[in-house]
């Protein structure tokens, strides 16, 4: 492929960058205080829009001229809404949980009174000798940001922010490189697909580049659907241009002119921002016809997926774009040979594509310097569940689970102990404490029985019931199965039947063996990745937490007291205070009655086991107890109703 006139492309990009940098400097140089507010879905859900309104109103009221920039997600979900305040004379400060009231307070006390309100500061964004730097905290210092480097820094609706901070330089360079060199760079970097399976990205690109035909397609797979996972959404909402730039470089490498971002319709903000980003990039000539004046053209469309989890599977995704029912097909032929409308197609995950610009910009050697030899680079996880600091975390591959959960995310809250971590969503597995020293990379996790997945990580404390967790995930997969092949359609449902039976206390001795057999045949016999990996939550929990399954089946006991049918609440009469009515008032079904000596009892036939009474019972008594199996609860007779 001819490369056009190098001077023109280079100059065209330099002009764009100059303009963006000038604008960025103007923003920086504006006198007066500056605010940066995280307005991705996570921030909005925590009320950041109200914070913004309160901030604007208070500033107007007080007649303070200040600059408010909205950015994407900074990754710290536990502290949303997040606000960075740059007040002249102070280092930039990061405030956590900034409610509208707190925003007003910051304006009054900090901007007007000069008191930075230390109790609300998470840390300073720069090193200084006044306020602890955020990098002194493990939640920040253990991260290595490659994919999310500019998330929370750039305004996702402003392409010039991204260009000013180095964006699209890799594309400009790629336009002047031979496609072969780009493919080789990605191969040498050892980049592996961040969608879950870890297929070498360079190899995929090469196969597509070598495939017959002139028309080729690049698809960005943003059909993120794992429960509790939101890495791709955050990336699209915080820095969509890095993804688009990666797509364009990929297109240049494989010779594609057409690109599609396949994003879930359930991500309205991501859809809007990526659409805006495409328009802005087209306007500046960074996408579309003859990019930067050269002879390479690449047109990107945004396609909204309509809510089927299975459409994240690449062959189902293709059918869905073609307007057909989202059902996977047998591979081969692989999409790189016969993809969208039969054209050779590269399908890469959002994070894979976002990794490409830094590789082109800084070189494969630099990328290999991060992570492990077989899994170079970083991994982005959305760590949720029972951790002190949940959120989006980017760590180098090879970091251990222990380090991620305990050092970066602060460990388990409420003095509970760690029980299991679920990695890889419905296709992944639950790993127990013994595996905490497993390094996070594609191969080690598969060896342990889980999988990298696309980055969902759910941490569970001692209160989690592993049978119930397996039931939850199988309920998900059997609903989301496309219904095409026998093993996935009926097999996952039969597995769910058994798990539900166990959580109801109706498990039979032979069910354990039956579960194993079914899980094994579903894994071996299914057509696509969804069915092949659907039994993983069952297989891993059976392997590592077998005693819990046995307790459910043999003793009808739920060791963690989660399964309602297998637990009961009772009131310890030695602890219950005479005359206290806290539990009586909160019980939604009037199952709690007063005994003759004015203590309380629970009518087991009425109790729905909601646990409200546990919460209501004053801490100094702590009289409501939970037992499993339910027959262990002492029976307290309801006194006869007295006629008055």
């Amino acid at each position: 492929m001819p490369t056009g006139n190098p001077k023109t492309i280079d100059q065209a990009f330099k002009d764009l960058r100059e303009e963006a940098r000038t604008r960025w400097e103007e923003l920086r140089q504006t006198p007066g205080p500056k605010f940066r507010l995280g307005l991705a879905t996570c921030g909005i859900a925590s009320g950041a829009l109200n914070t913004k309104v309160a901030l604007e109103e208070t500033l107007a009221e007080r007649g303070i001229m200040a600059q408010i920039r909205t950015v994407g997600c900074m990754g710290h979900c536990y502290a949303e809404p997040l606000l960075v305040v740059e007040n002249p004379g102070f280092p930039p400060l990061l405030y956590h949980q900034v409610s509208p009231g707190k925003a007003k307070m910051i304006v009054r006390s900090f901007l007007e009174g000069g008191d930075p309100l230390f109790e609300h500061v998470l840390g300073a964004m720069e090193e200084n000798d006044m306020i602890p730097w955020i990098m002194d905290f493990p939640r920040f210092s253990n991260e290595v940001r490659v994919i999310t480097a500019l998330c929370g820094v750039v305004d996702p609706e402003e392409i010039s922010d991204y260009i000013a901070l180095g964006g699209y330089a890799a594309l400009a360079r790629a336009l002047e490189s031979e496609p072969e060199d780009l493919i080789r760079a990605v191969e040498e970097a050892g980049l592996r697909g961040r969608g879950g399976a870890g297929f070498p990205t360079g190899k995929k690109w090469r196969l597509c580049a070598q495939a017959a035909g002139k028309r080729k397609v690049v698809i960005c797979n943003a059909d993120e659907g794992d429960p509790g996972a939101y890495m791709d959404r955050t990336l699209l909402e915080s820095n969509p241009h890095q993804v688009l730039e990666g797509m364009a470089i990929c297109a240049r490498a494989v010779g594609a002119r057409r690109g599609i971002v396949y994003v879930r319709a359930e991500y309205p903000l991501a859809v809007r921002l990526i659409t805006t980003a495409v328009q802005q990039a087209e306007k500046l000539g960074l996408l579309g016809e003859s990019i930067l004046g050269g002879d390479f053209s690449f047109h990107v469309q945004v396609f909204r997926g309509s809510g089927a989890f299975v459409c994240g599977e690449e062959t189902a995704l293709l059918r869905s774009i073609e307007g057909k029912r989202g059902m996977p097909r047998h591979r081969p032929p692989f999409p790189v040979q016969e993809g969208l409308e039969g054209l050779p197609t590269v399908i890469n995950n959002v994070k894979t594509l976002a990794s490409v610009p830094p590789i082109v910009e800084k070189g494969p050697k630099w990328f290999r310097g991060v992570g492990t030899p077989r899994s170079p680079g970083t991994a982005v996880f959305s760590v949720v569940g029972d951790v002190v600091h949940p959120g989006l975390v980017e760590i180098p591959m090879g970091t251990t689970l222990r380090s991620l959960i305990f050092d970066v995310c602060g460990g388990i809250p409420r003095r509970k102990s760690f029980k299991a971590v679920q990695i890889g969503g419905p296709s992944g597995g639950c790993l127990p404490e013994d595996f905490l020293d497993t390094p996070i990379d594609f191969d080690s996790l598969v060896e342990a029985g889980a999988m990298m997945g696309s980055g969902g990580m759910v941490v569970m404390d001692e209160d989690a019931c592993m049978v119930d967790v397996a039931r939850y995930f199988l309920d998900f997969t059997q609903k989301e199965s496309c219904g095409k092949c026998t093993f996935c359609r009926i097999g996952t449902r039969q597995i769910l039947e058994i798990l539900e039976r166990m959580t109801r206390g109706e498990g039979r001795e032979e069910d354990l063996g039956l579960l194993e057999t079914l899980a094994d045949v579903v894994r071996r016999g299914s057509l696509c990745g969804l069915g092949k990996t659907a039994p993983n939550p069952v297989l891993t929990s059976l392997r590592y937490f077998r005693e819990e399954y046995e307790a459910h089946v043999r003793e009808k006991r739920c060791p963690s007291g989660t399964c309602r049918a297998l637990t009961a609440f009772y009131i310890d009469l030695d602890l219950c205070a005479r005359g206290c009515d806290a539990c009586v008032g909160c019980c939604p079904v009037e199952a709690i009655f007063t005994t003759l000596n004015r203590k309380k009892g629970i009518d087991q036939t009425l109790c729905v086991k909601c646990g409200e009474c546990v919460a209501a019972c004053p801490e100094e008594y702590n009289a409501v107890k939970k037992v499993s199996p339910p027959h262990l609860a002492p029976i307290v007779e309801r006194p006869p109703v007295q006629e008055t």
Partner: protein
Amino acid sequence: MATIYIDDKAVEATPGDSLLSVCLKNGIYVPHLCYLEELKETPASCRLCFVEVEGEPAPVTACTTMVREDLRVRTDTPEVRRLQRAALRLLLSVHRVDCGRCPANKHCDLQRIAALLGTGLKPKNLALLLREPQVVRVHPLFDYYPNRCVLCGRCVRLCRERHAMPLLTFADRGFSTTVTFYGQGNSEEIPCADCRACVKACPVAALWPRDSDAPVPGGEEEPSPNTAGSDPAEAGP
């Protein structure tokens, strides 16, 4: 032509042909439901036609395996049979076994496969999960019996191939997936009366003409709630 070996028997075959087709042409029966010789693409969805191919770590589906020189295949290894039995039992766990009143009796592929695998027609220790209603009457001419259907998709694919505007499709998702009819309810406007490709291709008589002289299908006594105001208790014989 290429020489391949199926259960140690040398067979001549055209490279690129589907292995399942070659097996069937040479009188070697491999259980299958979704495969149709006349349609080019196979959905590989019934997961029954497993065979072991030398060099492959695990059984593969014969319908998606292409003939190549020196292909060595075994159709009856224990692992193959284990997967086939498991798939059949899963299908039987959602199948209303009522052969005596089923028009497919004695021509039924499930019966044939069960006989070959020696499993009987019981799902063994799996729960029997049947659907309601037993009969779906949305097509003007054909009744659909969800508890017979194995969702092989032959009907859907044939309909799509025969008619510019197909009238059958899959609907719903996961375990609730079903074959359904869309289009006009008027039997004059649809080509179904003359075509009947779907009915003929169905391996289990899950689609059956309503006006048929064939034996009354099993579900007839429990009509679908879709049919106007019919109460099972009031329904005639």
